[in-house]
């Protein structure tokens, strides 16, 4: 695990090093007048040193929390990260449970009713969901719900509330920086409701796209379990529908699903980039894409490292979950 993080940092740094020292020196200047100082900056910060020296220096900077300056955010990367992170977190806090519940339930139904109309319908849904790029789907959702019906607005929260929160720090405390949670904690149902309304379109998009993937995995693993001998035995004993599918088959069918969970998380993160760009939600994905377009390199490096960290943590959780759902792993 630690090795993966180390590898990611080397990989990211190698990509960064493909820039010329002069190009990287630009990150240290803030006004056009300083351009003439570039050779000096290169010398001063040792930007033409050998790879390993620069890498070690970079790691040292990072471990003290200095990730550089983000031009897009107009503030240091570390501070900007904590500004953008809650937005992404909030969306995922809403979508993850929905994705898990809907995806597993639909996959189970498709597996139980293998080769019937239910199965075919979910199959069509899954294939279309898979073929529909997230950014296009977001645009379509935006077109329908914002353009045509104008029920749900894009963005994070209405301007009036942004202003209110900014101007009344004594009446409204930002405990978590999640607008829905803060709204409830402050007893401001209108803010909660407003934030939720801004969340609906991203939720619809994210859930649909990821569920389409999850349900296929659940379906095929369910079909495989149902055809095993122990299910035939249970059936022969006269157990009812609930015992066969929910108590026996579902538990075993979940194991392959947990295996692909890491992949689903990666897919959701990729999807959140498109969603945040199109629904103009200033989260990590939005920050990354904007930085890529505006060549804000420190941000790219930091966000890549962040995604590496998420990957490592996800895999750690998956390993723990394995032991929890599969006693064979726990007991050996």
């Amino acid at each position, binding site marked *: 695990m630690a090795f993966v993080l180390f590898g990611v940092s080397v990989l990211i740094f190698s990509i960064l090093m*493909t820039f010329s020292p002069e190009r990287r020196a630009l990150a240290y200047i803030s006004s056009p007048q300083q351009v003439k100082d570039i050779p000096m900056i290169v010398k001063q910060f040792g930007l033409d040193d050998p790879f390993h020296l620069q890498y070690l220096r970079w790691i040292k900077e990072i471990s003290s929390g200095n990730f550089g300056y983000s031009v897009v955010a107009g503030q240091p990367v570390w501070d900007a990260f904590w500004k953008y992170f809650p937005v992404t977190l909030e969306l995922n806090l809403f979508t993850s449970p929905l994705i898990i519940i809907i995806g597993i339930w639909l996959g189970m139904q498709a597996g139980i009713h293998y080769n019937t109309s239910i199965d075919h319908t979910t199959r069509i849904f899954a294939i279309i969901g898979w073929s529909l790029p997230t*950014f*296009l789907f977001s645009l379509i959702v935006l077109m329908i719900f914002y353009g045509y019906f104008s029920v749900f607005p894009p963005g994070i929260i209405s301007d009036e509330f942004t202003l209110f929160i900014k101007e009344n720090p004594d009446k409204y405390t930002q405990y978590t920086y999640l607008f829905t949670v803060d709204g409830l904690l402050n007893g401001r149902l209108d803010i909660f409701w407003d934030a939720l309304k801004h969340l609906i379109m991203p939720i619809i998009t994210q859930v649909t796209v990821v569920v389409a993937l999850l349900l296929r995995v659940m379906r095929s693993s369910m079909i495989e379990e149902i055809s095993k001998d122990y299910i035939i035995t249970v059936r022969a004993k006269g157990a009812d529908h609930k015992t066969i599918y929910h108590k026996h088959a579902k538990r075993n069918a979940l194991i392959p699903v947990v295996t692909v969970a890491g992949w689903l998380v990666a897919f959701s993160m*990729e999807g959140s980039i*498109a969603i945040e760009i199109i629904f103009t939600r200033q989260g990590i994905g939005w920050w990354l894409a904007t930085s890529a377009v505006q060549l804000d390199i420190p941000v790219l490096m930091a966000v890549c490292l962040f*995604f590496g960290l998420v990957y490592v943590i996800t895999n750690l959780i998956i390993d723990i979950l394995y032991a929890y759902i599969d006693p064979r792993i726990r007991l050996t």
Partner: protein
Amino acid sequence: MTETHPRLKELKFTFYRIFRNPSAIIGFTLLIFFIVVAIGAPYIAPPKYPHNPYRMPHKGFSHTPKPPSSEAIFGTTSGQYDIFYGAVWGTRTAFRIGIFVVGISMLIGVTLGTISGYYGGILDELLMRFVDVVFAIPMLVLAMAIVVAFGRGLDNVMIALAMIGWRSYVRVMRSSILTLRELDYVQAAKIMGVSNLKIMLRHILPNGIYPVLVMAFMDIGSMVIVAAFMSFLGLGAPKGYADWGQMVALARNYIVGPPDDPLKYWFAIAIPGLCIILFVLAWNLIGDALRDAFDPKIRRG
């Protein structure tokens, strides 16, 4: 001569399985349609700039899209680029992206996966740890970083995607080699003194390649999606290039029309969007049917 080669017989059965599947028929129909459009592009939409046919012709510079008319049958998008022309030539772009990226990724992935799985040992260990690292960053994120480092442009997007795409092929190829390596017929070939290279190429690869093939079909679709999204962001194809993702980007400010007619500019998004969806759908449907046809567990069912 009633006896046919067993491999040929299996192949025939596979084709029979594939074409009994309705999704494969839809998929292949769509794919053939796109191939015809891609090949016939110079006849369907004669280029205005013969030396650079991927540049979309445009009449005027007005930002507002114009609805379909007799002059431009699909209408024009922002900047007055002809949507029909872009849709036709964009097919070629999509094929180029998909086949180049998946071809290179598959070549690298299958080669490394076969060698790593067959020989094992320290080489295998090192390679797999490297793949672990590459896997830790989502494709799109890593591709963005590489494109920023190499510079914008469709070619660089394709190179970046190929540089990352091989990672999944290595894993899939390696795992199927690991099981095949231990089978009796491979051991027998080894004892008979067949060279390692010949065992890999003749005895292991033909049996282990199926999961990779299924993945490749599915991958063409997802690579086209990623490339389209990067063009949409402005990292890929330049403005005015016949690329579906770029065309969606052109229309992006016109998702919502004037208040009295909110869906006025639907064609500017819907036509390039539909092209992407159908193209990806074609490959996914075929991939899905191939998986069912190749899967030994449900193959004879």
